[in-house]
């Protein structure tokens, strides 16, 4: 019994290490012309339910600050700085949306939208956020998986 548990822990650790090794660092993300990012940042499929939470969380994605999203109508006050995201999966390919989440400035030059997975080229970042991305690689994949569920057609 003990031995079995030990093996299980060993396997979990090995898996976690393997997964960690596959995470693409912010500086290593490959953008295509036009700003799309084809490769998953983690190799682990995004969880749309987790993505929905991250999307709404003010300290994580805080996406409602700027975007209307009818799927989250239970939350009051949706911002209108960016475009509404209803049906966003009908309008964009997954790779393009990943690129927009990672660093939208490669898709829309000069956009107000913050980059959610970037650490370089920033000025005067508050100490506690230095060297950190707004979202982790897996959180980006989770939000992306959630966005891909927003279909109207």
């Amino acid at each position, binding site marked *: 019994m003990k031995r079995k548990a030990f093996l299980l822990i060993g396997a979990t650790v090995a898996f976690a290490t393997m997964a960690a090794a596959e995470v693409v660092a912010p500086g290593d993300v490959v953008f295509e012309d036009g700003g799309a990012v084809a490769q998953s940042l983690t190799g682990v499929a995004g969880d749309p339910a987790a993505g929905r939470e991250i999307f709404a969380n003010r300290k994580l994605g805080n996406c409602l600050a700027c975007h209307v999203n009818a799927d989250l109508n239970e939350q009051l*006050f949706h*911002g*209108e*700085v960016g475009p509404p995201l209803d049906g966003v999966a009908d309008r964009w390919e997954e790779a393009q949306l990943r690129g927009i989440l990672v660093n939208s400035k490669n898709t829309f030059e000069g956009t*107000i939208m*913050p980059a959610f997975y970037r650490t370089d080229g*920033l000025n*005067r970042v508050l100490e506690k*956020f230095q060297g950190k991305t*707004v979202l982790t690689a897996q959180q980006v994949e989770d939000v992306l998986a959630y966005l891909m569920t927003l279909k109207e057609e």
Partner: protein
Amino acid sequence: MIISNLQRVAAIASVATLGLGATAASAQDMPELVINDEIAITTHAPAPAYLENLDEVISGWVFRSTETQALQMDDFDNPGMIFVDKAIDAWDKVEGTAGKSCAACHTGGPEEFAGLRATLPKWNEEKQALYTMEDYINECRTERMGAEAWKWSGADMTAMNALISLQSRGMTINVATDGPVADLWEQGKEIYYTRVGQLDLSCANCHEDNYGTMIRADRLSQGQVNGFPTYRLKNAKLNSIQGRFKGCMKNVRATPYKEGSEEFHALQLYVASRGNGLTVESPSVRN
């Protein structure tokens, strides 16, 4: 408790009323700001020529809910006036080694300073520095009263600032941008358009490119400073201009400049000059 209820009412009202009215706003139904049925405030003015990207400068009052707007229309409803009353008491209070109060030298009362607020910040020839109201107040305290300098955004300072600024209420903002302040003005402009913080935003991204739109439950204004010190429902106190800059920078996860720093003086000069043509509203009321 009263304040927190007010906040809720204001937040709900801002969405309920402005959410519908924003696009429909025209010259006829534009609300007018007249304080105490007496002091007419200019809430819209042609933008100064040096603002390449704006046609019109607009008071932050315009972007607030009807309820918040009403609080500024009568001094009995304006919570900022409570602090002005405190400053009236402080005006006569003897402090420091010289045994003086403000009143000891300024025998004409705070009224002596009518017009000053409309020109700030401005170049102080004697000190060879750009002076804000805080600088003038602390110079008096340390050099003539022999008293301790007040903290930049402390309650004593913002209250006295409000009392002196109030003497210029309704006067047209006319901040000089040339001559000895020209370089500082350029520096302030540079800061205004520089993206900072983890969220990588400049002042202009929100307050020039997106004013009038909702950012969650809040409507973005032009970030005009003609109403400062401003009573905010959010923190139930008077707020200084540079204190607000600091708050904005923290919101975008940037390391703020220090209150009283050259950078914030330059930014204050530039932002104040963006309001030339509006009128002094101090103490204004915002959310």
